[in-house]
């Protein structure tokens, strides 16, 4: 199952390291990363693939949510289809 991880907030050291560590721990594979500054906000977008059948989606979102709160970032994990269906015909 493919999903998009979006990290929005103030740029700081260790964002990619912390986020990718959590993903690694939950057997989530990173397929693509892009980062940019949008409206003065650091925005990192990762396309990831959930490879474990046993680790629930919620565990990953909860872990990232906690990490985001600790660093003052907003982190979303959403299945890819929501974006493709909304923006592609």
């Amino acid at each position: 199952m493919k999903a998009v991880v979006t990290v929005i907030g103030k740029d700081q050291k260790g964002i990619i390291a912390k986020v990718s560590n959590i993903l690694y721990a939950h057997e989530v594979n990173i397929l693509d990363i892009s980062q940019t500054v949008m409206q003065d906000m650091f925005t990192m977008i990762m396309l990831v693939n959930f490879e474990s059948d046993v680790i629930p989606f919620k565990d990953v979102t909860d872990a990232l949510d906690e990490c985001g709160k600790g660093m003052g970032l907003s982190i979303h994990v959403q299945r890819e289809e929501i974006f493709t269906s909304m923006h592609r015909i």
Partner: protein
Amino acid sequence: MINPFEIVETIRMIDDENLDIRTITMGISLKSCAGPDIDVVCGKVYKKITTLAKDLVKVGEDIEEQFGIPIINKRISVTPVATLVDALDEPSEEKAVMIAKTLDKAAKTVGVNFIGGYSALVHKAYTNGERILINSIPDALASTDLVCSSVNVGSTRAGINMDAVKQMGEIVKKTAEKTADTQGFACAKLVVFCNAVEDNPFMAGAFLGEGEGECVINVGVSGPGVVKCALEMAKGKDFGYVAETIKKTAFKITRMGQLVAREASKRLGVPFGIVDLSLAPTPAIGDSVAYILEEMGLEKCGAHGTTAALALLNDAVKKGGVMASGYVGGLSGAFIPVSEDAGMISAAKEGALTIEKLEAMTCVCSVGLDMIVIPGDTPASTISAIIADEAAIGMVNSKTTAVRVIPAPGKKEGDVVEFGGLLGTGPVMPVKRYSSEEFINRGGRIPAPLQSLKN
């Protein structure tokens, strides 16, 4: 990979502009539960609902989590209960209320927040069971928490059943009096329709129509805040541009509804029915249909020009949404429930928005006079006359119209009634003080209108 700007746009719509899926509504046919014995019927109704909808809430929550899109309500609509009452041996109001209580219990067991379909379709005439069901509505709504009721009193093909209109004025009044301790709250669960639709997922008017299947998933999307924010970028532009902007936004919102509907249908193993692309406001700031109209350039919702603005909005929402979903249905358009819309609450408090203006607005919006609190001493015949006026608009214009008014006991013009939650705050709006009693007492039927020579 998807464009980062598009990803951020979607997240902004959800986080900042209140985009949500308003409801996943499972339609369940109760036709197979009909029978002569009330206890057997109640047993079958409870079993059928709790079996078919047992995973509804869980699936809704899973989708919410995985797609990151809030799904506010999970609900159930059933086929009109009047048909069950008709099939009973010695049907009575008490037996009808027992079915209402069974629906309430089943809804609580599966965890949904409303169950609709305590309904009767009497647009031409009554059956015995329908008459009994309608008479039982005040007791049924006062003795349950989650049951919603609707009655269809008119249609373009049948005309208006004025006997039912008269009766519904009295029923609305009784329902308010039965729940005087909550300012007539039960009336918020009662809708009187003309041209009711069979696949509406929104409460309180949802029921599963006679032409529907065994079980179906219908989804209602929302997002007035998203449309308002999109229009902020269109300041000073002409109406062609405004309509285009609304269409594009409605398309995106509906795509999300379509995705959720397909996903829910797949996970529950239930066929997908329709997406209802209605702009349904909530009392949250920034989630108001009135603010969209004001964004178009009106100082206050209710000012002259409001009907034109709403007509454009309603039409553009449909045009944008139709292409985004395989099956569009329900009420689809813009809702104008006064107590549930921050902008309308404010306009009504200031006197900018009156019942007369709202009536005009219902000619071009998706439903009708919705969530309007009127003085508690309003005579039943005046409520019937309000229903008759709305039904006439629906009948002549071949559209759905409805009346959901709350004659709040003991309240008068200028008072404010707090319902809380999604139902919001209702300023008590004045109604005409001139009597319609003689008119309503005539009874009978208003014949169906001519469908040609349109002027």
